[in-house]
């Protein structure tokens, strides 16, 4: 309805402009000036009306959207979706909590293993040290020092294989 009014205002504004043109042609300047002012007024009125219609349309749409968003069915639908998401999240949380527990278990096991490895290597190193001290008279000073240094180094490196080889080397040298 309001659009019709706006369009009517436009049409009448055009008509008044035409009339003003005719009046100007017939040298009725004062009346023509009034007619032009009136036509401009009608044109602004039409524009103002159109702008108001647009603003009203936007507000109305916004209101309708808000009304729909807060309607009971939409709220219930959102609640259902939320619950479904909560279930998915619960499954995910469970999976990661299990993963975390497995990780900590494995870490504790590795720690116990490392502790035991350290104790065993230390014992082996101490035994090698004892063997070295016993074989000191049979070895030259340089070899003794080198073997001793190797023993200390391999103990620091926690290198069991190298320590075993060193033990074998000392035994071979002593047998000679």
């Amino acid at each position: 309805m309001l659009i019709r009014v706006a369009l009517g205002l436009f049409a009448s504004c055009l008509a008044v402009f035409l009339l003003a043109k005719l009046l100007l042609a017939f040298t009725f300047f004062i009346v023509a000036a009034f007619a032009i002012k009136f036509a401009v007024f009608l044109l602004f009125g039409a524009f103002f009306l159109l702008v108001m219609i647009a603003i009203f349309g936007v507000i109305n749409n916004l209101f309708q959207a808000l009304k729909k968003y807060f309607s009971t069915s939409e709220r219930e639908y959102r609640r259902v979706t939320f619950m479904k998401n909560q279930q998915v999240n619960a499954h995910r949380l469970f999976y990661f909590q299990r993963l975390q527990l497995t990780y900590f278990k494995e870490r504790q096991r590795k720690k116990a293993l490392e502790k035991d490895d350290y104790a065993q290597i230390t014992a082996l190193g101490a035994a090698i040290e004892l063997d070295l001290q016993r074989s000191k008279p049979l070895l030259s000073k340089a070899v003794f020092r080198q073997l001793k240094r190797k023993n200390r180094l391999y103990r620091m490196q926690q290198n069991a294989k190298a320590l075993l080889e060193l033990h074998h080397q000392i035994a071979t040298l002593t047998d000679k």
Partner: protein
Amino acid sequence: MLKNWLLGIVDTLQSLKSANLKWNNENQEHQAALKHSRVLAERALVAELKKRSRQLKHELTILQTQHSAELLMFKTKCKQDVKDYKQYLESLDQLKDSIQSSYTHLPEAVAFTIHHHAKYLLNEMWETTEFEEKMRREIQLIRFMSTVHEDARLYLEGKNKEVLPERTLKFIEKS
């Protein structure tokens, strides 16, 4: 002429209006029925959604309870597993002590190798995920431990005069 043209337009508009009015009048009942059924469908949908959300909430509560119970059980199992592993390591240390106390002149390197092999078998058993394989490896570990103990016992009883626990060393060579 202009007047006739304008009158024609007005007539057309009025005839359109009257046709619209007539259509509305004829279909008033249908429109009311449609509106009514729309409202009913909306209510039914809301009721269905409410029921579904209640059901989901119930399921979620059950799921959370189930998960917390399972996690608690899993936590206890993990603690027990670590405890078992530590106990295994202690028993391997005892195994080493036992063989060293029997064979008094046993080189530390040999004792270390025996202990290291036992630990290797233990870790193999522990890290296997398949049940049957795990059982097989556990039996292997137990057999190895019993071989070591047997060697120690025989040496203590004087039935074995060898300087080294030969049966144990053969077992290591074989595996």
